[in-house]
């Protein structure tokens, strides 16, 4: 077992993890953060996206031990029913949510984009969201929701 220290959603944790344990396993099984979804286990689908030290990563491709010392935001650390993040509000209002399995990863990719670039072009939005697959094929509404969230943030 390896001891790691990390900050998840503003809370510090010290965890004992297996050498082969993935970050997604540590988040889901040790911390009970079940909003991080596993769709493929090989970095194709982006359902397990979290923000690690300001970058979006596929948490199925990061070993828990590699996350030692890092600051992580999972979907549980973004907004709530009293005060949703502009991206979450836009996703609901535009109808960018169908089955919802890709949604946490989509929201995190969009949030991370807007944290760094408050006025993204359509192309920049497309690139930022390109690591997240939606099989219900709601891409048009997803991209529109990100655009609306960006415009709302500017006000």
């Amino acid at each position: 077992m390896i001891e790691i220290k990390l900050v998840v959603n503003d809370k510090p944790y010290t965890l004992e993890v297996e050498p082969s344990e993935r970050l997604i396993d540590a988040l889901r099984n040790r911390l009970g953060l079940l909003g991080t979804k596993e769709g493929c286990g090989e970095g194709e689908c982006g359902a397990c996206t979290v923000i690690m030290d300001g970058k979006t990563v596929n948490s199925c491709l990061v070993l828990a031990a590699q996350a030692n010392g890092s600051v992580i935001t999972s979907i549980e650390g973004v907004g709530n029913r009293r005060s949703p993040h502009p991206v979450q509000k836009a996703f609901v209002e535009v109808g960018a949510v169908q089955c919802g399995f890709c949604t946490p990863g989509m929201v995190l990719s969009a949030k991370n984009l807007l944290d760094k670039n408050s006025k993204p072009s359509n192309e920049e939005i497309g690139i930022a969201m390109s690591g997240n697959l939606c099989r219900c094929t709601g891409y048009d509404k997803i991209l529109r929701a990100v655009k609306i969230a960006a415009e709302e943030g500017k006000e």
Partner: protein
Amino acid sequence: MKTSVVGSRVVREDAWGKVFGQTKFPADVNLQGQIYAVVIRSPHPHARVLGINSEQAMSLAGVVAVLTAKDVPNNSHGVLFRDQPVLAEYIRMVGDPVAVVGAETEEIARAAAKLVEVEYQVLPAVFDPEEAMMPDALPLHPTLRPTNVLYHMPIRRGNLQEGWAQADVVIEKEYSTQHVDHAFLQPEAVLAHVDERGHMVVQTATQYAHYDRGEIAHALGLRFSQVQVKTLAVGGAFGGREDISLQIMAALMAWNTLRPVKMENTREESFYSHSKRHPMRMHYKTGATKDGKLVALEAKIIGDAGAYSSWSINVLRKSAVHASGPYVIPNVSIDSYAVFTNNPYSGAMRGFGAAQTVLAYESQMDLLAKEIGISPLEIRLRNLFKVGSITATGQVLTGSVPLDQCLAKIAPYLQRGGVSQ
């Protein structure tokens, strides 16, 4: 008619739980004391299981049970026919489940699964549906059908000979489509347990909870009232969650061990285990006059059902019904077939058999237009269904048939070479 619902925007209430990551998909539910189960699947497309040795696996610390065909009270399930085994002794496709291993952790279960020795007698397999249709081909489901032809749907209208006599132009072509996987984003998962009433409770993502309940009850030899299926959030389906996947195996393991049982497919297991879109071979011969009026169609559509029936009959029926497209053709002969092979089984997927034939009939329209010397739009305008048109199956269309309006809308884009600006 004006209503307050149709045409208005409604916020879906479940979307909030989804954007906060709170929605529970079946992989997200757990019970105290649960064990994990994994499936051992056949690497062979056609084989008999001669023996399964689970001694070594059972001796691994943490292994609770290894179940095989002999542990299933009624070893069959299926949406149209119960032709699919819960745990197979006779293998009809790669991926057929032969045993299920339950253990204290998923790691132990996966390690134990590698220690289960399965002895197979490998049989010659058939992968080409036209080969499988030959009268001397070995039938894969002899108790269900004497040959591998599961279904044949003939449609006849008018007089084909007269149709060919009127035709100035005839186009004859062969089209084929491939297997397609739904690849719904959430791989199959299930949590099964025996509750305080002694009832079998199965939590899963399914398109068909009442059917799942019946199949679980049948396979385990329980009454319907002893089985409860709870549908959690469904992470995409597109037809791929209409058949049973892990539900019965998890229930069987829970019933045998009296422990809650969790099962989750990896993406690879998901690809191996659920249905696919039917690959189809479509032989089309279409005739038109020099004015661009369709006068005759002869079509033969062969759908690869794969190893099990699933929804093949309904799918190939729909292919036949849609084979003439949205066009008036007075003389028609259509034959569609669903054929068993040792390929992965085919089932429901978006469009349900209507999608494949589009490739054939619309390609034929383009080729006829080119041959006659009119535009692809023009040939469609001259033949499309209107109110009062009679389809190849004899249906008189009396309702809303706004194809002309639809084509009028897209006509400006077609004139620009098919690319919208």
